[in-house]
């Protein structure tokens, strides 16, 4: 599978030029213009290769290299710079930079080197991405967000619907309300939204609006601070402790809009982390609200995050084999219900990698990290087990949402057997046999 390349150069034009060059050659590339931001990206996403400039403000290439190595000891690093003098060259040589190339670049040579470290997308993947980018552009013209998200994973339909909706609110509005389950990945979505709103890779600040009454002023001044800093994104995340705070939040937005200069570019993304029913949230946030489904309902996104995290953890621990999973471990990952969502995935996988030998993560290691034992199931029954569970869950949800009794629901669905209580759904066979077969 194709890896990703990170390009860092404080001169935006140059970074873009490199990015374009690499993309033309079928690489997946992300760009950063500030070392700190590149570090932030490195923390979230496992890259195969980093290409960086040497002379940069704040942190020069050497410092960046050091920090990046802390995260990824084996990360291939190509330094691209203007003429370096001997002492500088020596310095970086001692930091095990993988390669130094001097500007102006000989593109042919450059690309040859890149190829050593990162696999370009295969035709299949490219058509996937192009298709994905074309079903994503057809979807994205249908799905309508500007590009595939870098941070948030929107592979599952409910997630992409969430992202669409969030984007449609965010792209023209000043405020966005997100209800996420505890430990959710809403912040990742906000990061992507910040990107799409033209803030490039500027970091998105996260502040909290706590329950105490004095905190409104506190929040205001924090926000003012963030907004005055041009190095920060104009999209700011504000964590609310409960749906009840939404009204306060709305007031905050209003005040801020009046005060702040150039408030059109401002977006306040309010996040409420709570489990349970969303009716109150939807009523309060109205058209500016969107609900993020729990990760257990988004299997493919769960998979993406698990892979990413395992890779990062494995690289850091120097146990590269831990970036893979045994089939039993895969089953456990997708069966577990992840009550604390994305955050829990990160915790568990880091713990699992730490506890594991340098080999694909096994069921035992995973279960220990999960704190729960998950009975393995033979391959033939795996999909059936999942579908059964999903069917039951969905029916329960329907009963609650549509306010029906089990019996009424059974009738409405045209089911034969008599259903007295929710419990009866457990034993109900799959509504269509094909669901457990291929």
């Amino acid at each position, binding site marked *: *599978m194709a890896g990703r390349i990170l390009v860092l150069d404080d001169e935006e034009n140059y970074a873009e030029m490199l990015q374009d060059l690499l993309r033309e050659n079928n690489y997946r590339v992300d760009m950063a213009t500030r070392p700190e931001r590149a570090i932030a990206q490195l923390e979230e996403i496992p890259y195969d290769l980093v290409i960086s400039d040497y002379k940069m403000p704040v942190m020069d290439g050497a410092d960046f290299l050091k920090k990046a190595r802390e995260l990824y000891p084996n990360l291939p690093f190509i330094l691209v710079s203007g003429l370096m003098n001997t002492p500088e060259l020596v310095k970086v040589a001692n930091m095990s930079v993988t390669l130094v190339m001097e500007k102006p670049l000989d593109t042919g040579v450059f690309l040859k080197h890149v190829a050593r470290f990162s696999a370009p997308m295969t035709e299949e993947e490219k058509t996937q991405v192009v298709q994905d980018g074309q079903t994503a552009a*057809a979807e994205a*013209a*249908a*799905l*309508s967000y500007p590009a595939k998200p870098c941070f948030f994973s929107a*592979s*599952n*339909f409910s997630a992409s619907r969430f992202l*669409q*909706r969030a984007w*449609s609110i965010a792209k*023209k509005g000043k405020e966005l309300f997100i209800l996420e389950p505890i430990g959710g990945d809403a912040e990742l979505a906000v990061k992507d939204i910040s990107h799409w709103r033209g803030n490039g890779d500027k970091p998105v600040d996260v502040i909290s609006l706590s329950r105490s009454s004095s905190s409104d002023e506190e929040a205001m001044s924090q926000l003012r601070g963030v907004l005055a800093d041009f190095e920060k994104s104009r999209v700011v995340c504000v964590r609310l402790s409960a749906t009840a705070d939404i009204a306060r939040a709305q007031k905050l937005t209003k005040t801020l809009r009046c005060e702040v200069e150039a408030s059109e570019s401002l977006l306040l993304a309010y996040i409420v982390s709570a489990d349970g029913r969303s009716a109150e949230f939807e009523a309060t946030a109205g058209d500016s609200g969107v609900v993020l489904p729990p990760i257990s*309902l*988004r*299997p*493919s996104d*769960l*998979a*993406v995050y*698990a*892979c990413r995290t395992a890779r990062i953890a494995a690289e850091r621990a120097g146990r590269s084999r831990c970036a*893979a*999973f045994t*089939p039993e471990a*895969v*089953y456990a*990952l*997708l069966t577990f219900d992840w009550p604390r969502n994305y955050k829990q995935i990160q915790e568990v996988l880091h713990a699992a990698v730490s506890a594991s030998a340098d080999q694909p993560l096994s069921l035992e290691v995973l279960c220990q990290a999960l704190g729960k034992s998950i009975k393995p199931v*033979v*391959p*033939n*029954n*795996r*999909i059936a087990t*999942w*579908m059964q569970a*999903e*069917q039951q869950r*969905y*029916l329960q949800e*329907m009963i609650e949402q*549509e306010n029906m009794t089990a019996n009424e*629901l059974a009738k*409405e*669905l*045209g089911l034969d057997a008599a259903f007295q209580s929710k419990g009866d759904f457990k034993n109900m066979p*799959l*509504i*269509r046999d094909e*669901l457990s077969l*291929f």
Partner: protein
Amino acid sequence: MPYSVLILDDDADFNCLLTDIFEQAGYIVTSLTDPIEAVDAFRETDYDLVVTDHRMPNMAGAEFLKVIKKIKPEVPVIMVSGYLENDTIRELISGGVGGVFLKPLNIFSLLERTAELIDEAKKVENAPESDAGDIGDASGVDAGVQLGFVFRSFPCKSGASASFAKRLYSLRNFKSSLSLIGEPGMHYRSICEDIRGFYENEAEHFVYLSKGSFDQEQALSLIKVAKQEGAERVTCVLLELEGMDESQKKLATSLAKHQGEFEELGVALRTVFCVCGDLDALFDEGLIDENLYILMGTAEVLVPPLRDCDIDVGVMAQQLVVEVAREKSLAAVPRFERSARDLFRQHKWTRNYQELRATVRKILEDHPGDIITHAAVKSALKFNEDVSLRTRFESHLSSQKIDYLRAAAILLGGDRDQTASFFGTDVNAIENQM
């Protein structure tokens, strides 16, 4: 009857100006700045008129004229430009341009010429031998005939809606009551607004009363207010009649018969009943009593369901898009791909206008962008249909099944073989599903 105009000018400011001019004159405007895009749009969508500039970077106006005349020669084209050489003007004339206007624009002349050109074009369409593609419907009636009066609730390009409009117009001077009988989701209010538009007299007032607002006090006070405002005749429109309670229905009868409190109000009083459902069926079900049955049966006008007016549906959908675009202050009015609009026209619309409106809004919400694609419409329409719990349930499960498949594949590094054995099946089966 709103006509649609395509405006092409690479100068954004001027483009805006032209757009405003035409929109305010009641046209539905699509404005573009790129000639190539405009050719595509012209091909995909039916416009009643095209307005273009001459000086454009990729394609001169004269060339654009040639291209579009090859596609749909019957659509009139007006050229607007800063300066044109005589030779160019000659070229344009021989190319079939309908009007040439040099800047500074005389807006009045421009709009006048526009109306003339559209009129002429419509007349040609309606000539018996003409075969103008979209016009005409199953009943073979000459649709798109000039009605002779303004009617907005239906574009009246279909035979069914044109007959309906004409019937209403012929009954407009009804003395005591009129019944509009239709299917669920009909836009009765707009239809009544059209009836009101039949009168030039300012002293005609319409008062709207629905299930939630109809009681003696309200009705009387609204009538009194109208009278104070100078009404000589007040028409009370009763909406959702079949849903009203017994006392309201009795009140409706008294109102229609000018009995009780409604006698001698000092102003001519009429009633319009708007019901969803067949009169006989409503009577059988006990939803209307004998009095109402006979009263309403007297002057009954059946509102055509949307599926009988398929040509209209296309136009109505575009009108709704314009409405939403205005509300959201969008930079450009989204337009339908031709195949997307065809889907609209073929759809059953069991809840008629209400369903149409909700669907258009949903599509624009879920798929913002300048072009409304076939796929977008298809998924929205499918969503409407799949409203049954059972279908939603099954489709959710199917799509989750595929997602689980993808998830396993991702976790197994994208290896199809491993994924297949993970599920105890073979690679082909996996490929088929994904």
